[in-house]
C-alpha cells in the first residue's frame, strides 16, 4: 500500500475513534437525562423514599450526599493543602519524600471497596461510632486526600518563581512567602481542582456501603441541634447517600417503581456532577482572565 493511502486511512480511523468516544459520552448523558429527567420533580427531590410502595423520593439521600461531601472536604482540604505546600516548597529529594509520593500513588489507586473495608475496621468498629456520617466522611477522605494533594501541589508549583524571589528579597521568611504570596496565587487552581474532586466524591458508593451505612433514620428537617439523633446535622447518625441509594434499591428490588427511582436518582447524580465540572471550568476561565489580562 502506498504510504499516502495508509496515512489517509489512519487519519480516518483516528477521526472515527474520536467520534466514537464523543458519541459514547453524548449517548450516555442523553439516555440518562432523557429517561431520568422525566421523573425529577420537586416531590421526588424532597420527599423520603418508600420501602415497599411506589412514589418515594430521594430527599434525605440528596441531603446526606451534600453533607458528607462538606464534612469530608472540611477534613481533607486543610490537610491536603498543607501537605502539598510541604511537597512543593519544603521537601528535599530523599527517601522520605519518595515514601510520601509512593504512598500517594498507592492510596489513589486503591480499590474503593478496600478503602470501605478499612473504614469499617478503623472508623466504624474501632472508634465505636457504628455506621455514621463521620465514618463515611473519613473513608471519603482516604480516597480524596491523594487527589487534593496532587491538585494543590500542581497549583502551587505553577506559581511563577519571580513572585517567590520578590517576596524573599523583600525579607519575608519562607513561610510568609508561602502563606501570603504563593498560596493566594495558587488559589484559583486549588479551588478548581477541589470542585472537580468534589464531583468525584459525590458519586462514590463502594467506600460508603460499610462506613456511612445503607440506611437513614427519619430526619426532622428543622431540628438543627447536631447532638439530636434525628437531626439531619448529627454527624454520628447513619446516612445513605444518593449513589448508595441507587445501588441499594436495585439490590433489594422491593419497590415497584424501581426503574423510575433509579433513573431519576441517576439523572440527579449526573446533573450534580455535571454542575461541579462545568462550574470548575467556568471558575477556572474566569480566574484565568482576571489574573492574566487584568
Amino acid at each position, binding site marked *: 500500500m502506498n504510504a499516502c493511502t495508509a496515512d489517509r486511512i489512519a487519519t480516518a480511523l*483516528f477521526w472515527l*475513534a*474520536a467520534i466514537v468516544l464523543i458519541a459514547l459520552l453524548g449517548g450516555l448523558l442523553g439516555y440518562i437525562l432523557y*429517561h431520568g429527567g422525566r421523573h425529577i420533580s420537586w416531590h421526588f427531590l424532597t420527599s423520603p423514599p418508600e420501602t415497599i410502595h411506589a412514589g418515594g423520593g430521594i430527599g434525605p439521600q440528596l441531603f446526606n450526599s451534600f453533607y458528607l461531601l462538606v464534612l469530608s472536604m472540611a477534613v481533607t482540604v486543610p490537610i491536603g493543602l498543607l501537605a502539598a505546600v510541604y511537597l512543593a516548597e519544603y521537601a528535599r529529594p530523599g527517601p522520605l519524600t519518595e515514601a510520601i509520593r509512593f*504512598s500517594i500513588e498507592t492510596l489513589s*489507586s486503591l480499590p474503593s471497596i478496600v478503602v470501605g473495608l478499612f473504614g469499617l475496621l478503623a472508623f466504624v468498629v474501632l472508634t465505636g461510632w457504628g455506621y455514621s456520617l463521620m465514618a463515611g466522611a473519613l473513608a471519603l477522605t482516604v480516597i480524596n486526600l491523594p*487527589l487534593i494533594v496532587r491538585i494543590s501541589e500542581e497549583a502551587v508549583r505553577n506559581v511563577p518563581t519571580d513572585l517567590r524571589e520578590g517576596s524573599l528579597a523583600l525579607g519575608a521568611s519562607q513561610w510568609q512567602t508561602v502563606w501570603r504570596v504563593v498560596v493566594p496565587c495558587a488559589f484559583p487552581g486549588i479551588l478548581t481542582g477541589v470542585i472537580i474532586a468534589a464531583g468525584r466524591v459525590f458519586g462514590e458508593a*463502594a467506600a460508603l*456501603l460499610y462506613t456511612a451505612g445503607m440506611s437513614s433514620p427519619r430526619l426532622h428537617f428543622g431540628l438543627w441541634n447536631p447532638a439530636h439523633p434525628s437531626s439531619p446535622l448529627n454527624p454520628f447518625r447513619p446516612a445513605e447517600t444518593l449513589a448508595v441509594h441507587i445501588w441499594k434499591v436495585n439490590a433489594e428490588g422491593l419497590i415497584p417503581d424501581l426503574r423510575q427511582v433509579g433513573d431519576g436518582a441517576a439523572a440527579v*447524580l449526573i446533573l450534580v456532577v455535571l454542575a461541579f465540572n462545568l462550574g470548575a471550568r467556568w471558575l477556572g476561565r474566569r480566574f484565568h482572565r482576571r489574573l492574566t489580562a487584568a
Partner: protein
Amino acid sequence: MNRRGEIEMPERPERGRRLRPARGRERVGGVRPGGLRSRLAGGRRVGGGGQAGRERPFLLGCAALVILLTASIIVFISAKGLATFVVNRVSPVEFLFSAQWAPDRPAAEGGPRVGGLPYILGSVAVSVLAVAVATPLSISGAVFAVEVAPRWGQRALQPALEMLAGIPSVVYGWLGLTILVPFVRDHIGGLGFSLLAGFLVLAVMILPTIFTVSADSLRALPVDLKEAAYALGSTRWQTIRRVLLPAARTGIIAGVVLGLARAFGEALAVQMVIGNTRKIPGSLLDPVTTLTSAITMDMPYTVMGSLWNNVLWSMALLLLLISCGFIVAIKLMARRGVKL
C-alpha cells in the same frame, strides 16, 4: 492532568530546589503587581526573624499522614485477611487455586472449603477483556487529541473524556443494567447478566484513565522527534507509528496498567451486571462473579470472625496486594524504561 485522580506520570523528575524556574504553563502568570505589593508591604511587618522554619515539622506531619494512612490500611487489611490462613489454617494454595467453595459446610460432611479460584478468574477475565477493548480506542483517541487534530482534541475530546471520568460508578452500573443487560438478553442470548456486560461496562469506565495517561506522555515528547521524522519525509501515520508511539510507550503502558488496576478493583458497577454466579468463566454469555462482587454481596451477611467472613477479608487483601503490585510495576518500568 492530575485533576481527575489519575496517577502522576512516573517519569516526572523530582524537583526539590527551593527556587525553581517557572514551569512551561503560565496559567496563573502575571498577577497584578499592585495587589501583591500592597499585600507584602501593607500587611504586618515581614521578616520578624527567629521563627524561620518552625512550620516545617507541622507541614511535614501533614504530608507524612499519607504514609501513616497507607501503612495502617495495609496493616488493618492484612491483620484481618491473614486470619483465614493463620487462625482457620486454610492453605493459601487452596484459597488461590481451588474451585471448591463451601465456606459453611459442617465438619461432619467434610468441613468447609474456601477455594477462591472462580472469584479470582472472574476478576481477571472481566478486567483483561475490558482493557483489551478500551486500549485501542483510548490510545487512538489520545493520538487524535495530540497529533491529528489538537484543536478538536482540546475543545471536544478532552472535555468529553473528563466528563466520562466524572460519571459515578453506580451510574455506569445502572446504565449497564438498563441498556446492556436487556440488549444482550434479547439480541445475543443468555440471561443478559454476563461476563460480556461486565467487561463492556468496565471498558467504558477505564477509557478516560488510559486516554489521559497516554495523551500526557505523547504530549511530553520533544518536538524534535516529530520534526526529524517529518524532515525525513515520513507521513503523519509513519511518524506516529514508528516514532511517537514507540517513544511514548513507557507512559502508554503505564496508562494501560492503571486502567487494568482500576478495572480490577471496581466493585459496584460490575456487581450490578455480572450475574454473581460462582463458576469458572466458560463463555462470554455466562454469568460469573468477581472478588469485589463477593465482598460487596456477602460482607453484611457473614459474622465477623467466622471463616466465611475471614475469607472475604483475604479477598480484600488480595485486591490490595494486586493494586500495590501494579503501582510497583509501573515504578519499575519507569525507572528502567521498557524494552519491547
